């Protein structure tokens, strides 16, 4: 590989200068490896193909300063085991007791034994997810994560684990790395909500063994100054289920990447998202890469974005069907509702198929509120603003219906409705 240009090396040095690098213990090798990979590829730059629609500067700048006062913690009605991180640091006092039937949770910073089950996952799924498209900020998170959770699911978890992020310092620069391993037939629901820090870079590696079921629902809520780049890397085995949903409200720079590798037959992988944004400072990017490497698997991508007053939404979604992945059923839809002429939606749907007996469909649309439907509602006495909200929520409903648990879906629906009430006109 060619050596990195000096300017990119300088940029990388500046970004990692103040970061903590724990090079010892079972994570040492993965972190060292990540650091050298990072040295080869550098940080994302505006001209990189996968950053064409999203300027990486806010995520790669050496320092950050952002308002963290508007974070939104969700799912308060759901009985869950709460794990709290403040500015990216585990807060034992604010967290519940980590013991639960069916799973073990260890804090990454406490996992100091020489041999650890997570060694087989930590940085491994991330490394695999670098091909064919590099994701340097995920590599950075593997190298420099200061904390995170290692969750081993051995049975059916009795209640969800809710990771609550609280940002307090307006210069906090949190880098977290979570690993989840679901053993054969195990089940768990992972919830995430809140704003982690002034800037948040994270990895979530999920290894879903045969017949296991993993559900993930998260809220990125309300803070208009949010800067976040999350990555999910999942390995999805035979007859297992992986489902992830993200509601993203406001945020000046949000990039959520999901790299799902379906490696076992008859597996299911769904990712979905609902996004709402108002104003020129709003930028939201969902970048998804799903690889089908086994037979009779189903994947779904359902993304809906509501954009107004010059907001920008991005969707890059790819389905790769490898040779031999017969009877693949791949579905991808990305849609935006543009509430005015200033907002924009940039979509890059991709299909790459090397098997001959597959069913793959994708669609991408941008549109305005349907005038006829609006008039119909008003003619029945529904006031204009309420009619608009109803139609916007109706637009988001298809994405929200991807969430299996109705109470969780309702929680997010109400938050989106609340946003619409606050952003009328």
């Amino acid at each position: 590989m060619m050596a990195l240009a000096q300017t990119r090396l300088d940029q990388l040095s500046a970004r990692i200068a103040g970061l903590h690098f724990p090079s010892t213990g079972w994570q040492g090798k993965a972190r060292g490896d990540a650091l050298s990979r990072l040295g080869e590829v550098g940080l994302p730059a505006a001209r990189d193909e996968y950053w064409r629609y999203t300027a990486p500067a806010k995520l790669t700048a050496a320092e950050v300063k952002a308002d963290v006062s508007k974070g939104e913690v969700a799912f308060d009605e759901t009985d869950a085991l709460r794990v709290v991180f403040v500015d990216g640091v585990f807060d034992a006092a604010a967290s519940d007791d980590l013991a639960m039937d069916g799973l073990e949770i260890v804090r990454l910073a406490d996992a100091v034994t020489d041999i650890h089950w997570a060694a087989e996952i930590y940085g491994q799924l991330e490394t695999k997810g670098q091909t064919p498209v590099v994701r340097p900020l995920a590599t950075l998170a593997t190298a420099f994560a200061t904390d995170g959770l290692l969750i081993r699911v051995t049975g059916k978890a009795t209640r969800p684990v809710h990771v609550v992020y609280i940002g307090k310092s307006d210069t906090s620069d949190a880098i977290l790395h979570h690993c989840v391993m679901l053993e054969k037939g195990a089940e768990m629901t992972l919830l995430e909500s809140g704003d982690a820090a002034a800037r948040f870079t994270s990895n979530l590696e999920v290894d879903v063994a045969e017949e296991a079921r993993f559900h993930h629902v998260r809220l990125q809520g309300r803070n208009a100054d949010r800067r976040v780049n999350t990555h999910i890397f999942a390995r999805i085995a035979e007859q297992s289920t992986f489902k992830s949903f993200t509601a993203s409200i406001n945020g000046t720079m949000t990039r959520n990447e999901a790299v799902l590798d379906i490696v076992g037959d008859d597996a299911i992988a769904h990712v979905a998202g609902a996004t709402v944004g108002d104003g020129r400072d709003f930028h939201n990017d969902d970048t998804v890469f799903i690889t089908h490497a086994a037979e009779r698997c189903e994947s779904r991508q359902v993304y809906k974005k509501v954009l107004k007053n010059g907001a920008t939404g991005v969707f890059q979604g790819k389905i790769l069907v490898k040779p031999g992945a017969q009877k693949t059923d791949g579905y991808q839809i990305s849609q935006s509702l543009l509430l005015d002429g200033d907002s924009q939606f940039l979509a890059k749907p991709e299909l790459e198929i090397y098997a001959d007996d597959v069913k793959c469909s994708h669609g991408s649309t941008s549109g305005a509120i349907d005038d006829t439907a609006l008039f119909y509602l008003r003619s029945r006495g529904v006031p204009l603003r309420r009619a608009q909200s109803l139609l916007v929520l109706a637009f988001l409903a298809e994405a929200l219906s991807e969430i299996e648990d109705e109470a969780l879906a309702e929680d997010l629906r109400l938050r989106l409705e609340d946003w619409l009430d606050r952003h009328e006109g």
Partner: protein
Amino acid sequence: MSRSASKGLWANIMLNIKNLHVKLEDEDKVILRGVDLTVEAGKVHAIMGPNGSGKSTLSYVLSGRDGYEVTDGSAELEGEELLDMDPEERAAAGLFLAFQYPVEIPGVGNMTFLRTALNAQRKARGEEEVSAGDFLKLVREKAASLKIDADMMKRPVNVGFSGGEKKRNEILQMALLEPKMCILDETDSGLDVDAMKLVADGVNALRSEGRGFLVITHYQRLLDHIKPDVVHIMANGRIVLTGGPELALEVEKNGYTDILAGVE
């Protein structure tokens, strides 16, 4: 005060349209050329006329749809000017349009829609909102009489409904919202005889002393089931002939061309 005085004056006049002129907003195309029409409370008026005569435009203009410009005239509901109101204000004032093509709204449940509409109107009139329990009871009762099953109520508004189901859903809305002035735009279009009878029964059940009806139709057959008190013939943007129910039969027998030839 002047408002209530004028209300008293028009005590039994529900809808009063005077010299209504309307053109398309974006084009120099005139559609209504001086419509005069008065509908009394308790009466059913029918408007018949050939395609393109302006019947549907009249219903849209009265209910406040975008795309039209009123260049002259007025339309009052119980003495209040409709043309100054937003569509939702017209609805709260008691106007209801049963659409020729009811709109499908994916993602909005029929029940949510009906309850939102009912409560929005009640709120606009300063009335108390209907509780979820009372609403459910009310809907069940009205739906049963129109043979609308629970499944239809659970689905998104008009999505996957047959033509007949859509029209029945319109009448259900009318029954729930209890408007003072009902306009039915080509409600018979796309219906077979049985479906038409069901819809007509629903409309007839709503006929009352305090309510006016304007039934817009191309064919006479709907008027066999919803018997009008007065029949108007509309042509080229104007009411050109007014008479009793026998006028509808004449249309059926001789067609519009003959009748209109007699007028002009």
